[in-house]
């Protein structure tokens, strides 16, 4: 075991860790927002929205993340330069990077899984509570905002921690579209120093540590929300 390379590559490794954390935070935040809309669309009255939501979830849950990532990076990415005016715009430096496409793919994928969970949670809210809200004259929008959605999120909270950890474990795949996240850094170190196991071991320790930290945070969060059993 030889860990003398750590000092030399500390910037690359730190940058990679930050990028991994950033990808996780971005995809979970935006993914969750999309998931709320997906879940509402799937339990709503409009059959078009219901079908669209279901189709979205089926597609993103039924195909590998790797294919989705490549589809977005290579597929959509190859059409972007043809959009008039886009290359000259200030957005181009962002749209050129693999990081942007990686974040989009991870977000869309997370939204599909989380959307299914929230759909189940929305359906699991006791009928009586919704009826009570209607009985005191709340409008449908207000019921959704004040009763239905908060209760559903509370019900789905225990599985949310698991989903975030699964998402963390999905992030290293972004190295296949040239993003230098922590795994990408380890890959480069392996190529430079010809050490196979040590960089992978370091990366593993980081992921396991972060997984542990996430479970602890969610444990605290769950304890902070009062429940009656």
């Amino acid at each position, binding site marked *: 075991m030889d860990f003398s390379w750590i000092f030399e590559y500390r910037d690359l490794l730190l940058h990679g860790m930050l990028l991994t954390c950033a990808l996780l935070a971005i995809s979970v935040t935006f993914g969750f927002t999309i998931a709320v809309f997906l879940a509402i669309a799937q339990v709503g009255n409009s059959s078009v929205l219901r079908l669209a939501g279901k189709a979205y979830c089926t597609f993103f849950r039924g195909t*590998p993340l*790797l294919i989705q990532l490549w*589809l977005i990076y290579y*597929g959509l990415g190859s059409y972007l330069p043809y959009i008039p005016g886009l290359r000259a715009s200030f957005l181009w430096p962002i749209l050129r990077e693999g990081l942007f496409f990686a974040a989009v793919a991870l977000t869309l994928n997370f939204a599909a899984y989380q959307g299914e969970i929230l759909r189940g949670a929305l359906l699991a809210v006791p009928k009586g509570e919704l009826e009570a809200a209607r009985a005191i004259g709340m409008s449908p929008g207000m019921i959704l905002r004040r009763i239905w959605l908060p209760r559903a999120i509370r019900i789905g909270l225990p599985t949310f921690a698991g989903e975030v950890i699964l998402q963390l*474990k999905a*992030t290293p795949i972004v190295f296949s579209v040239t993003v230098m996240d922590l*795994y990408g850094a380890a890959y480069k170190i392996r190529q430079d120093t010809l050490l196979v*196991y040590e960089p*992978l071991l370091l*990366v593993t320790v980081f992921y396991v540590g972060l997984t542990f930290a996430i479970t602890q945070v969610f444990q605290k969060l769950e304890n902070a929300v009062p429940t009656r059993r």
Partner: protein
Amino acid sequence: MNSSSSILQLLSLAPPGWGGVLLTGAFATLFISFGAYLVGMVLGLGGALGKLSGIRSVQLALQIYTTVVRAVPELILIVALFYAGTDGLNRVLDWAGFGPIQVNGLVAAVAVLGFVQGAYMTEVLRGAILAIPVGQLEAAKAFGMRPGLRFRRIVLPALIPNALPGFANLWLSVIKDSALIAVVGYQELALAARVAASNTKQYMLFFLAAAVLYLVITILSNMLFSALEGYFRRGQRPIT
């Protein structure tokens, strides 16, 4: 972008088109997934029985196995096991006095994915065995069934309906995880699509085609598993 006739040409099965390459890749994906699934099931059954055996050292070893495998990202496990596995095997062969061998990519893929599946299977099967009503096992003991017979006649048939939802999830996840094998260079569906796409520059077309093939596989699998569950739950009272 393209007229529909040229799309059909690109997807045709004969060599100028890449449809045959994609289909071969899809079969490779199914083959790897199925092999890994079986390996995982054997490992999982052993693991579950070991965890329930009450032997402390076995339990500890299995606890480490399932915890580590489930906490580390699949991609890293696959890359690490792919290199460590072939490297380790060659060291053992060297020590035993044989020359190094080139491990077949297919065998390595099945072994690596199977090892990962085994950890998840252990937990699914452990839960399924624990969910069997104790009274049934006690009744079997009271009849004087030996452990082997009890396992074959009582435990196995009773755990299958409990384990099927977990099995279905794991089957779908092994199909999606098998795409990660592309990263270590074995040509299954994902890599086949990438090869076709980079040769023709039709990225959108071929990745969409691969996505559709994966979707067909997963949707058909879903139907199969719900039929299986209906069969194995026959005679059980529906919940609520």
